[in-house]
């Protein structure tokens, strides 16, 4: 791969804490190798800021291999930047050209308050899981793993939903800041398996109620969530959740 160095202008959201109003600051990123990842470019910029006695830019990141779901930058109007099926940590600088101006913001949603700069608080997602995103089985209760065969197609579909990394890009992309893709991925993962069956109805009712309580918006089926999802979680999960919800609501009124 040919590699070269490029110079960029960065407009980055700076916000001291959740009470601060926040503003954009402009930085020059000079001599950036196109082999760097987007976060490595931020590392270089931060090293320079520290040497100049300035406050480095705070951002969430951890595994840097696209699976932990921690990184969360809104780059040029798109969660995780221009590449599809990708996380910010896996975006590489060859996606940009000499002289580009790149705008970087945090996820913006009422339910994801900014902690500092590009870091947000996504604990609302944990609370949605607490509302029912599990199978109530205590350690030690299990029967043999092969005692209950599961149709391969169903197991595969369940896995496809379970691949969600909980990054919140779906919420950030949605004009309503809806968490329907995230919530429906967990509902689908468990509804498609026999192990999820006993709590199927209470699960969907409770998780949706919690989602609403956290302040996430409603879904209007624009599909923006699916388009930016790093794991390509399908919007059909939302349809499945709606159907599960309807059926559970009717049953619960019996």
């Amino acid at each position, binding site marked *: 791969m040919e590699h070269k160095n490029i110079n960029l202008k960065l407009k980055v959201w700076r916000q001291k804490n959740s009470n601060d109003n926040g503003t954009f600051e402009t930085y020059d990123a000079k001599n950036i*190798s196109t082999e760097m990842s987007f976060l490595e470019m931020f590392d270089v910029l931060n090293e320079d800021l520290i040497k100049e006695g300035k406050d480095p830019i705070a951002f969430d990141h951890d595994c840097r*291999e696209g699976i*932990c779901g921690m990184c969360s930058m809104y780059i040029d109007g798109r969660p995780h930047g221009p590449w599809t099926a990708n996380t910010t940590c896996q975006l590489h600088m060859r996606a940009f050209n000499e002289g580009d101006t790149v705008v970087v913001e945090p996820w913006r949603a009422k339910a994801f308050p900014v902690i*500092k700069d590009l870091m947000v608080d996504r604990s609302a997602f944990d609370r949605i899981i607490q509302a029912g*995103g599990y199978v109530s089985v205590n350690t030690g209760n299990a029967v043999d793993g092969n005692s209950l065969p599961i149709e391969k197609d169903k197991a595969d579909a369940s896995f496809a939903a379970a691949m969600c990394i909980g990054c919140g890009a779906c919420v950030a992309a949605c004009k309503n800041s809806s968490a329907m893709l995230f919530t429906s991925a967990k509902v689908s993962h468990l509804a498609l398996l026999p*192990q999820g069956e006993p709590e199927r109805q209470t699960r969907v009712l409770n998780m949706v109620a919690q989602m609403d309580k956290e302040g996430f918006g409603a879904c209007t089926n624009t599909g923006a969530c699916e388009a930016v999802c790093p794991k390509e979680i399908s919007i059909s999960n939302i349809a499945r959740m709606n159907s599960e919800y309807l059926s559970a609501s009717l049953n619960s009124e019996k």
Partner: protein
Amino acid sequence: MLNSKIPSGPLDSKWKNYKSTCKLVNPANKRKLEVIVVGTGLAGASAAASLGELGYKVKAFCFQDSPRRAHSIAAQGGINAAKNYQNDGDSVYRLFYDTIKGGDYRAREGNVHRLAEVSGNIIDHCVAQGVPFAREYGGLLSNRSFGGTQVQRTFYAAGQTGQQLLIGAYQSLERQISLGNVEMFNRHEMLDVVIIDGKARGIICRNLVTGELERHFGHSVLLCTGGYGNVFYLSTNAMGSNVTAAWKAHKKGAYFANPCFTQIHPTCIPVSGDHQSKLTLMSESLRNDGRIWVPKNQGDNRKPNEIPEEERDYYLERRYPAFGNLVPRDVASRAAKERCDAGYGVGSSKQAVYLDYAAAIQRYGKIEAGKKGLVHADAATITALGKEVVKEKYGNLFDMYEKITGENPYEIPMRIYPAVHYTMGGLWVDYELMTSIPGLYCLGEANFSDHGANRLGASALMQGLADGYFVIPYTIGNYLSDEIRTSAIATDHPAFAEAESKVRDRIHMLMNIKGTKTVESFHKRLGKIMWDKCGMARNAEGLKQAIKEIQQLKQEFWSDVKIPGSINEMNPELDKANRVADFIELGELMCIDALNREESCGGHFREEFQTEEGEALRNDDQFMYVSAWELKNEHEWTLHREDLNYEVVKPSQRSYK
């Protein structure tokens, strides 16, 4: 004296007898007993959830924004279990034996046998939680093979097994949180253990959002904080993975065992420049079909596809005809280093070898053409068919490689190089997973217990979950049953106050250095010393030098580090400084341990101790022991030996020729 508390009796009934005779705590008393769990990866989340289910009052802590982020999530390949679903001769004994042998005879028989015994329960429990393992068309669980074994015992969920297992444990943990049995503290970092009357009774931690220090009491404390591979700066670990919790415990008296045993994984994407922040693993499964080679001529700068077949050196196939490209991790890593050091490396850095799929594409292409009855298929058709098969098997890995390097591995051989991946060493624990401090336990990668000098693929997930789901729920009761009369200790106790003030002083000291060099620059320098002198190959001269260099680095760090921002706010640079300061001290101990162990075994290769053919040469007469180090003073440790007694397995020299 070190007492490993291995139960007496025959190997296969030790655990059963232990479970039948260990002390129990009744449900009413469990409600009064508080347990602190630090770290929420596979070991921590499974322990916190299981202890919550039992009725203990649990507090769990993680430095990430959610327990779901822990680095267990990045494990790709799978999890081993002795289910024998494939009818291919697997058994608890074979899993036990493979693990002992793979660890080059430096692990405890009792612990490893227990691990093999509970391996099947793990799979059952995960299935019950709704973990979507790969399945066959008949609806039953699928298995695949992994390195170092002759049976198919690895359960998996595509290339995301760690993610699915962690999400399973995370969901169980979230359920306990919602039931009020576990209180969760995200974005908190443990900075000290509080010890009262010789027992672990709590922790001091820092709220990473506000910078405030907090005191938490527990009747016992569990450290489940993962490995210390980031001491090398570049590793396949997550950026936040650190040794701090374990190191603080070590400084309070917990012994650190076998620190020099680190695993270097042979197939990672090579370093591309000074900006590199971490390395990415390419699953071991790629060595099933890929062929590894370098040019036969030194400094050959031609593009790989321009180098003719007869000028390529498939060095693993040449050196190890019996195992070829599938030799164990430590052997494959050293062989790559040997070629690169001798000047045959490829790529701009010359620190890489090729992993080539061209032959596999042709082989699969011909098979596919045969299946389709295309007798006279042309070369282009065969190549296209072959690429489809490879894509189905390894597509996500090939995509990841292309994203990172910008090169298409279907067309150009991948460049790979070994990278630090896992640490077999860790806090010393006895059979009950208790460290040398009463009431302080250590689980998962953070302890030293089960993998000896080299871990087999797909065994890390197994150990983390075994410790959390099936071991600690029994062993902790054996300790806490004597604590039922201990009421909760108020956190204004002088021991808490003293521990907190020491942590506070250290943070102030760090912030007040106001030097000229960034934390990152020190971490990079430490990493370079460790990689060059305590990495894939070590020798006495280099290790002695490394110890001096690390001591100097420590001095320089504490006099010249520059940390921006302030204490009472979100300050990632301060968090990092705390961690790097601990890594520097650990680095010194790793070198001391490597210097002490005058033999080669598993991942520890001392250049002075090798066979004529360049293979690892163990010295069972003098070194068949666990090195457990006790910190005495700065730069000064005492070695305690735990002799390893092999009652069942007979240690032998590993050979892969």
